[in-house]
Structure formats: structure tokens, C-alpha cells
């Protein structure tokens, strides 16, 4: 039987309340969102917070809205809410495609986008999506909020720039008219973490690619993205040859390691193949838009 080590529990009532509790409690406290990563880690004693501060009662952290030319998603928005969001789907089908293959419907009812980002698991699907879209994280502490590009959000596996006494409050993604997007994932069985995943957006205008983003999970790409591959595509016609060259470049930006999900060269092959498939579909969607 796995049981967490003794822990204190506090339920936060507002963002300010959560922050003041976390700040007062210091390093030994952790916020809990859906709990689907933190509680298993506490059960395995990989995490031993002295206090967990529950964010589930904070309504202002949950919801999806358009603000100016950005999509804003509250950190406590559940996977299920992201999956079914018409607004996110309208601008970026990549959200629905990724959510559809994250965990299972029960985990998705309580697991959150903010928890996924902060857990920063190397295989986190929403981290790949966020980096592909070049989104931003809004991090709030007692002295106010700061905005950090998602491509600077991670400090390595399972580490982020969110400091003790701060919480992630929002994710913001720029809206790009005419963008097509797609997500591809290979997993061992339904609901499992990816062996490799790739998510992209592309804007095709006047016959050339004018904007794009490539994100990958589970293959240890720096900040889950492939900037060199993106640079190859900018200003180019979206031909099969150009897409394939970018996909191959993306695979070179991956640093997969062999584990129970497969050998490194297989994962690298997947990085190329899945990026190519995602690019093809995103290009077609952008051209159809």
C-alpha cells in the first residue's frame, strides 16, 4: 500500500490566499491542482511536502477566454474543459487533438493544464503544445505577476521557473489568423504517456510559410521545441521536400534516451515522422482556411 508521508492540508480560497500561504510556508509546501501527478509522487515519497495548498476552490483560476489577440486559459482549467472548448478548437485544433490522447477521461476531469505545465514531465503533451504555439505563462507572487515565454518556462525535467511563494495563474497563446495546427503522438497503449509526440502550427500565406512553431514531447528537446527546424520553413513553399527537411531537422533537435518505451533511434525516427505528419496536416488546414 502506498500512502503519502504525513502532510498538512490547507484549502486556498483565492489566488492571494494561496500565495500568502505558500509564501509563509516556504519550500516545504506545494500547491495541489488535479493531484494526478503530485499525489502519485507523494505516495512514492518522491515528493514529501509538509503542507499541500489546494487550489481547487479558486474559481478565478478556471476558464477559457479571448482577450485582445490572445487565448487565455486559467491554470486550474481541466483537461476535459480544454478538450471540449469550442474557442480553443476554433483557433487551434491542436488542443483538442492533444487532449484527446492525454491520459483517460477520468484523469482529464480533474487534471489541469497548470498542473501539467508545472509538473514539466518530459512527456507532457501540453508542454509541447505550449512551446509549439509560443505561448506565455503568467506567474503570480506576492509582489505581482510576471509573464514568461513558455520556451523559457522550464529549468530541465520536472523543474520550472515558478518559485516558492508563486503560482502559475494563466497560460496565454497568441491568436494567428489563418493558422493550421495538428498534434501527433505514438503511445504504447491508450492513455499512456507518449513514446514521442509532435505538435505544430503553420501559417501559409501567398504560397509560402510565414509563421510556424514545432513542439515535441518525450524526446528531450530543449524547452519541448525545434527552433532550427522552424527556421528552415520560414519563407519557404510548403512542399513535401521542405516539410521533410524540417522534420529531419526537428529529429536532430531531439535528444531521446532509451527506456521501457523504446530505443533512442526509434524515438528519433518518430520525431521526424510525426513532425512530418503534423506539418502536412497543419499546412493543409492553413491552406483551406
Amino acid at each position, binding site marked *: *500500500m*502506498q*500512502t*503519502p*508521508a*504525513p*502532510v*498538512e*492540508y490547507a*484549502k486556498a480560497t483565492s489566488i492571494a490566499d494561496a500565495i500568502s500561504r505558500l509564501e509563509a510556508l516556504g519550500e516545504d509546501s506545494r500547491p*495541489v491542482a488535479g*493531484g*494526478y501527478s503530485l*499525489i*502519485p509522487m*507523494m*505516495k512514492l515519497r518522491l515528493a514529501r511536502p509538509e503542507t*499541500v495548498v*489546494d487550489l*481547487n476552490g479558486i474559481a478565478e483560476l478556471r476558464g477559457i477566454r479571448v482577450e485582445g489577440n490572445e487565448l487565455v486559459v486559467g491554470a486550474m482549467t481541466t483537461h476535459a474543459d480544454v478538450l471540449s472548448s469550442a474557442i480553443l478548437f476554433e483557433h487551434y485544433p491542436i488542443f483538442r487533438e492533444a487532449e484527446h490522447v492525454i*491520459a*483517460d*477521461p*477520468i*484523469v482529464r*476531469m*480533474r487534471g489541469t493544464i497548470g498542473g501539467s505545465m508545472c509538473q514539466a514531465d518530459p512527456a507532457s503533451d501540453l508542454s509541447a503544445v505550449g512551446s509549439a504555439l509560443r505561448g506565455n505563462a503568467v506567474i503570480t507572487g506576492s509582489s505581482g505577476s510576471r509573464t514568461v515565454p513558455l520556451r523559457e518556462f522550464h529549468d530541465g525535467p520536472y523543474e520550472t521557473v515558478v518559485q516558492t511563494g508563486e503560482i502559475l495563474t494563466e497560460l496565454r497563446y497568441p491568436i494567428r489568423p489563418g493558422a493550421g495546427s495538428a498534434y501527433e503522438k505514438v503511445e504504447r497503449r*491508450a*492513455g499512456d504517456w507518449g513514446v514521442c509526440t509532435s505538435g505544430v502550427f503553420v501559417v501559409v500565406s501567398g504560397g509560402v510559410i510565414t509563421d510556424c512553431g514545432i513542439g515535441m514531447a518525450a524526446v528531450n528537446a530543449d524547452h519541448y521545441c525545434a527552433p532550427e527546424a522552424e527556421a528552415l520553413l520560414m519563407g519557404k513553399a510548403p512542399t513535401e521536400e521542405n516539410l521533410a527537411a524540417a522534420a529531419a531537422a526537428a529529429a536532430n533537435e531531439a535528444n531521446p534516451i532509451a527506456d521501457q518505451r523504446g530505443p533512442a533511434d526509434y524515438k528519433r525516427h518518430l520525431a521526424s515522422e510525426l513532425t512530418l505528419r503534423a506539418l502536412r496536416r497543419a499546412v493543409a488546414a492553413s491552406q483551406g482556411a
Partner: protein
Amino acid sequence: MQVSVNINGVEHSRDIEPRTLLVHFIRDDLQMRGTHWGCDTSNCGACTVWVDGAPVKSCTMLAVQAEGAEVTTVEGLVKDGALDPIQEGFTECHGLQCGYCTPGMMMTGRWLVDQNPNITREEIREGISGNICRCTGYKNILDAIEYARDHANSEVSA
């Protein structure tokens, strides 16, 4: 820490350690053994209960987080001595063998049918992807949930 949870319509108050998982609160503190406890790793779904109407893997939630919530376990499906359509479905369609996964399957199955009264077999298949059965091969479980869909709906329209 004092916690009060409404389970199947009955208020239960206990003084528990905050680290107590909801599944153990239900099974050990309250001695309600209908909810099963399997993998202990958030994968198998045997421990699925509803918290305020939404399914939760109760091995991955602290009991104190359910303070003030309405929890429904498999024991709460029976209404006035009558089996719920999902329970009838598992009986009629032989939806279980060892029965280990069954409480979780029923809680997820009934929730799926409530969410979408016209749910297709394919959608049910995906809907139970967080519930693992090592015995049946799933065919009869799908039949049982389809039975519930068909009978729960006729109940409503009747």
C-alpha cells in the same frame, strides 16, 4: 483533521490524518468495501467514485479534499432497493468475471451514459479507457453499458 463528507446521501464525519486517501477513507474508516482498490497508481480505475457528480480515481485524491462534497460510491447506485440500469446491465450481459474492476466500470459507465444518452459503442470504448479489466476482454462490459444507455434513457422518456 476533522472531515465531513456526504457519501450516498449520508453525512460522515471523522477525525483523520490529512494524508488519508479517499479510497482508504471509504474502505477502511467507513468500512464501505464496494469501492475497490487495485493498482494504487491511478491507472486501473477500480477505485472510481463520483465527487460532486464527476468520476475520480479515489486512490489519487486526499479524503480531506472531499470535505463538503457529495460522493457517490457503487453502493449509492441502488435506489429504493432497485438496481440501477448499469447494475442490471452488468447482470443481464454477464459484464463481469472476477468482479474486481466492476465497481469502477459501473461508476464510469453510468457517468458516460448520463453525459451522453446517445453514446456510441466506440465512444464507450474510449470512455472506459481509464478502467482496466483483466478478465472479460471488455466485450460484455461494452454490452452492459449499452444496456444501461438504452434502459436509463427509456426510464427518462417514460
